[in-house]
């Protein structure tokens, strides 16, 4: 757990360094860590090698360009980069627009405007959430993971697992309730 938290802190700091100082060493560390994971994520979702390669490069280029908007009080580096990869994929592969929240939302404000203790509080909340995710009953964790790595409606996930849709939905509700509690106050 401790090592995981340190690594998350190191990755957050690297995005901040890119955003504030265009720090190329920090960017290379982010590239080495995230580009192969983004490529792996896209290939799990069915992208071919060439498309996944292009989009992984594009995702890291987006990290460079938007690093000044990264706000560690709203998301960790890996969560932020997940949303970048997700949106690039929707745009490039599905050719759809991604409706997003209000651009006035604090998620898009520069991180300098956020207090340090908010940043710390969020990093701790995501650590708790990861711990909660690891402790979910296998049957719930499986559905959450498939939701991200198999682009299928939950009805098809249910079919392939040989489960009634109602069972899949109730596992999602139970899992989401635990994750929200973890994010909220950890009790």
């Amino acid at each position, binding site marked *: 757990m401790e090592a995981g938290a340190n690594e998350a802190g190191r990755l957050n700091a690297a995005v901040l360094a890119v955003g504030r100082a265009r720090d190329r060493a920090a960017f290379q560390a982010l590239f080495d860590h995230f580009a192969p994971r983004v490529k792996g994520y896209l290939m799990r979702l069915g992208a071919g090698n060439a498309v996944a390669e292009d989009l992984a490069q594009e995702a890291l280029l987006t990290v460079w360009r938007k690093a000044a908007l990264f706000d560690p009080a709203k998301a*960790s580096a890996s969560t932020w980069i997940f949303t970048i990869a997700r949106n690039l994929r929707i745009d490039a592969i599905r050719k759809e627009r991604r409706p997003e*929240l209000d651009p006035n939302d604090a998620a898009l404000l520069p991180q300098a405007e956020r207090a340090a203790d908010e940043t710390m509080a969020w990093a701790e909340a995501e650590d708790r959430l990861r711990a909660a995710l690891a402790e979910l009953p296998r049957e719930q964790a499986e559905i959450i993971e498939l939701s991200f790595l198999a682009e299928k409606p939950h009805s098809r996930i249910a079919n392939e697992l040989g489960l009634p849709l109602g069972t899949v939905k109730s596992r999602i509700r139970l899992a989401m309730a635990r994750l929200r509690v973890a*994010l909220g106050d950890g009790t």
Partner: protein
Amino acid sequence: MTISHHPGEELLLSYASGAANEAAALLVASHLALCSDCRMSVAAAEAAGGSVLSQVAPVALDRNAYDAVLARLDAPTAEIVRGANLAGNVPAPLQPYVGSDFDNIPWRHIVHGLSYYPLLTRDGTRARLIRAKAGAGVAEHTHRGEEWTLVLAGSYRDVTGRYAVGDVQTTTPQIRHEPTADPGPVCINLAVTDAPLVFAGLLPKIVGKIFGF
């Protein structure tokens, strides 16, 4: 503002994972603009996505990938917009589709007091805006699939209860209802359906067919 009806956690998770199609995502994003509680659920789901990303089996990039990206770092790009100031009465996620003011939408008249505006269709899922004056509504119908209705202005009621700004009503094929706008300001909804409605009466059947409901 108290919101009593939310999209299910399943739909929020689909939005966070990116699996939801654009029509469903538009409804969720517009609800999120009004509901801090569901924003927290989506934040939790996206953090789970971040965790999935960090644990996925990595796949090595081309040998020259890093140099290729480095070569593009200094290329000029469009200015990143920070917190553009949005005005108007339309939730931000909807503004790219219809502009900022409900009054400037070219509403299409259906019957007295009722009009609509088609937004988009994706994978058989349709998103449209429905505008109903007090007492007007969509004729009694059931559903072949699921229907989500997000209230953006005013309020309406049906056999299941009352729905006001921010609420999302989720209906399944079993529900037979005749949603009717409450007295007061005009009621505007974002309706997303994954199958055509099934109207009970003959005239609504014909009207529904003409307008593609």
